[in-house]
């Protein structure tokens, strides 16, 4: 992994900003710190960071607007940081194109783990689109529509496979309920959220040893699902 990656920390609280940058330094990453949205936009354009760590509550502009503006010209990974009671904002941020989110207060280990996943993805997406994924005892071949668990084939309905494929292609990333519904169903109604839960339960029963302690598909309550990365 390239440890000279440049991180942009956008956070108005000095204390939080400094310990994030300190912990990035311990991993020998480089970082730039800014305290507001305007400075963030300037830094994004002039310094071209590899990853943005973005607090949603900025003094001068909405963090969401930063994401939307960045997404007009770049795919650079954005990890959103927000307070616990800002679920709506989190979902909007993810739907606007953020790659992951963290809830304050977060542990440094968690932040670093998320950043590693995001970085790995930027490396991957540079490659050709992957055909097969291997996680733990699970092997998924998107082209052959094949799912193997412990080398035994698992039979999924077309819809189940479609959902699984979407999650796997975005492994490590949180997909919101509405994003999955839009991608798989196309048009959707609010009531389809229930069918999504049912499909997910069926997939888990086929893949997971213990559906309440999932190994592969993690529930992000109130937000969506995440396929594990490793």
């Amino acid at each position, binding site marked *: 992994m390239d440890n000279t990656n440049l991180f942009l920390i956008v956070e108005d609280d000095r204390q939080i900003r400094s310990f994030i940058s300190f912990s990035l330094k*311990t991993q020998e990453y480089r970082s730039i710190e800014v305290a507001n949205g305007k400075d963030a936009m300037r830094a994004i354009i002039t310094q071209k960071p590899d990853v943005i760590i973005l607090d949603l509550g900025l003094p001068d502009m909405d963090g969401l607007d930063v994401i939307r503006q960045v997404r007009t010209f770049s795919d650079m990974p954005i990890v959103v940081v927000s307070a616990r009671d800002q679920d709506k904002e989190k979902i909007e941020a993810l739907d606007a194109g953020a790659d992951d989110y963290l809830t304050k*207060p977060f542990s440094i280990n968690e932040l670093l783990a998320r950043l590693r996943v995001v970085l790995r993805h930027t490396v991957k997406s540079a490659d050709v689109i992957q055909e097969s994924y291997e996680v733990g005892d699970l092997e998924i071949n998107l082209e052959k529509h094949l799912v193997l668990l412990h080398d035994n084939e698992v039979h999924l309905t077309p819809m189940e496979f479609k959902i699984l494929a979407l999650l796997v292609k975005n492994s490590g990333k949180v997909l919101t309920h509405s994003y999955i519904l839009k991608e798989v169903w196309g048009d959707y109604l609010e009531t389809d*959220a*229930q069918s999504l*839960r049912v499909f997910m339960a069926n997939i888990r029963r086929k893949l997971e040893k213990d559906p309440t302690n999932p190994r592969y598909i993690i*529930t992000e*309550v*109130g937000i969506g699902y995440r396929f594990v990365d490793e």
Partner: protein
Amino acid sequence: MSIPTVTKYKNKIWFQALITVVILCGATILSILIQKIGFSETNIVVIYILSVLIVSRYTKGYAYGIIASVIDMFAFNFFFTEPLHTFNVYNKSYMITFAVMLAASILTSMQTSKIIHTSAIARQRDKQSQILYQVTSSLAKATSVSDVATVSAQCLSNLLDCGVSCITTDEEEHQNKKYSIKSGDRGVTVEILSDEQLQSAVKDKFIFPIADQRFQYGLICVPKNSIPEESGERKLLSSISTQIFIAMERERLADEKELAKNEAEREKFKSNLLRAISHDLRTPLSGITGAAEVLLYSLKDEESHKLVQGIYEDSNWLTQMVENILSLTKIQESTLALNKQIEAVEEIVGAAVKHISKYANNHQITVIMPDQLILIPMNGKLIVQVLINLMDNAIKHTKESDEIKVEVSTSRDNVWFNVTDRGTGIKAADLTKIFDLLFVSEGTRADSKRGNGLGLAICKAIVNAHGGRIFAENNIDGGATIRFCLPLEGKKTIG
């Protein structure tokens, strides 16, 4: 005879009898004159019937009219039929005349009496409704209980033309107040009565309670001699006291509403303040926790490491408390806007267990779930928090390596969640109290583990907001179970 004198004697029996006799004599004299002039007997019969009518008009009741009819018949017989001045009759056809005359007189007198009676009632009713109207409209203008009492004393004093007192009782302040007005006076005097004074104030008075089946606000005291025994005035007075009751009730409810409003505003202010403070604490706490964590990984010196460990743990604890306060104020404020969604129970339990496993170093958490998928409407994040709080509680009260069991089951209307530990259990006296806000058990280990009495209170608030219930119980084989249920299909249950 002047009119007041007539009114004064009007109801006396001898006076009415006198009227009857005078009229009958008059009729007889008139008839004799007519006979002398030489008009036919038919006119005499008509005059007698007219006399009965007049008697009925000016006397009370049926009796005088009927007696007059009979006397008339005999007078006609005595003075005008052959043989004169006897009660014998030669011409038997007079018998028919007598019978018809008697019947006509009696009927006339009865009708007249009835009409007079009815119109008297109507007049009385009219007067009563006038009075009631006056009382009601003055009561409507009153703006407090004491105002109502003053107005009612004035109205009743006007109406009855005597001294009246209205005594109000205040249950809360345990105080009796007397609003009295003397006959012919306009001013109302107010005095506070002790219980003994109250006893003497109601002595020898007519008492009209201002009350319904549940509440009593006071009494109306009227001198005994001011209300005639049988009259409708008592009825009127009791309906006036009902009006007074309604007015007082209205004032009481208005006061209560005002009080509740103030209370709610104070509550709101308090929770806003609490929330503002908690909110402002959150960011610096994140900073402290994060910085301490970074230091934890970088400090090698054991002394310092220990100190930083302390900072880290305490700031974590504070953070948790602040988050708890924020959730609690939020739930208390927006019970109706829970933002429920259909969630799969297994996902919720899974998320809670995954979160708690980070902190449950050596505790073993077992999950028992029915195989079938359970979907119920809930706010997923809040229920996850309930489960986390319950498991966290279980971890705090058990030894390391103890098992904590989370069990989900369904009944006909509910989904049940049980969190069981093998710890020391809950003192029987505390079983119902542990969900109270800020309750901390006074047990032996009170100082060993920090609790702030918020965790379980939040659980209860969240579960109740979902229309569910939460209980604590001790297991037969040791340890405690906290169980809560959520309604299936989002059916609202009350309580």
